[in-house]
């Protein structure tokens, strides 16, 4: 049977971008940059780059995700610039990566403490993600950015290391610490809300 080729949808005109996508893009930027002014600037630059590059838009993805792709690059540029000005201490956590269990098994401890609740049961609850974001915002900037770029945005380790100007081992340590702190924070915040 002949399959009909799907026609790409025409892109949403830029005059409607603010109404349709600005809340989403702003929130996306704010969650990653934390600073409202920088988030506003990043969205502004995204819209400008979007208008310039609209001729190259091929309709394979929705304009929302196309603009998000541009915004993500802007965010990474911002982070890169910022980490060049305030470099991260790459020696921090050396003891972890030199430890026997890391060298042998790629882990730091055999048995981390079990969770006090099962987080996977809470994934459908909006309040859980509020607690998650609050906990995320309590992490140091570098730790938060390492976790978000690597785990949430799924960037490859090499690009994250370049953006943060760090070594691969350091990225591992940052993510390890981020997980531990998030777990502690979620356990103390979420239990209270549940009981």
């Amino acid at each position, binding site marked *: 049977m002949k399959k009909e080729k799907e026609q790409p949808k025409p892109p949403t005109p830029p*005059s409607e971008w603010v109404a349709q996508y*600005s*809340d989403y893009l702003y929130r996306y930027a704010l969650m990653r940059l934390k600073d409202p002014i920088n988030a506003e600037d990043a969205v502004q630059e995204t819209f400008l780059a979007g*208008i310039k590059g609209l001729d190259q838009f091929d309709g394979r993805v929705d304009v929302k995700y196309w603009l998000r792709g541009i915004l993500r690059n802007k965010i990474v540029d911002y982070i890169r610039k910022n980490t060049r000005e305030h470099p991260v201490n790459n020696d921090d956590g050396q003891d972890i990566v030199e430890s026997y269990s890391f060298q042998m098994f*790629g882990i730091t*401890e055999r048995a*981390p403490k079990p969770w006090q609740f099962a987080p996977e049961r809470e994934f459908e609850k909006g309040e859980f993600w509020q607690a998650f974001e609050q906990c995320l915002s309590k992490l140091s900037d570098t730790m938060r950015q390492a976790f978000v770029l690597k785990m*949430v945005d799924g960037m490859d380790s090499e690009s994250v290391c370049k953006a943060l100007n760090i070594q691969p081992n350091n990225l591992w340590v940052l993510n390890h610490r981020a997980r531990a702190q998030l777990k502690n924070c979620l356990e103390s915040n979420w239990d209270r809300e549940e009981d």
Partner: protein
Amino acid sequence: MLTCKQVSKALAETDYQDLPAWKRCMLRFHVTICFVCGKFNTNIMLFQDMARAFRRHEEDAITEKAPEQAKAKWARTIESNISAKDA
């Protein structure tokens, strides 16, 4: 059979859901029975599940709106740039 180090390395590089099915099965099997790295790496997989679920939540839920002032500024910028491009 995968070693602990191979499991840890794979999880440090990739979300386990993006691995080929056979590798995902081997990895699951390893962390379920392994007394050395099982609990540690299961916790990493849980965080990968959490990050994926957060990504879905982030797409659907608008919990914070952009300030109206910023929206007005963006609208002006877009308008002036479209007219500049058309001219």
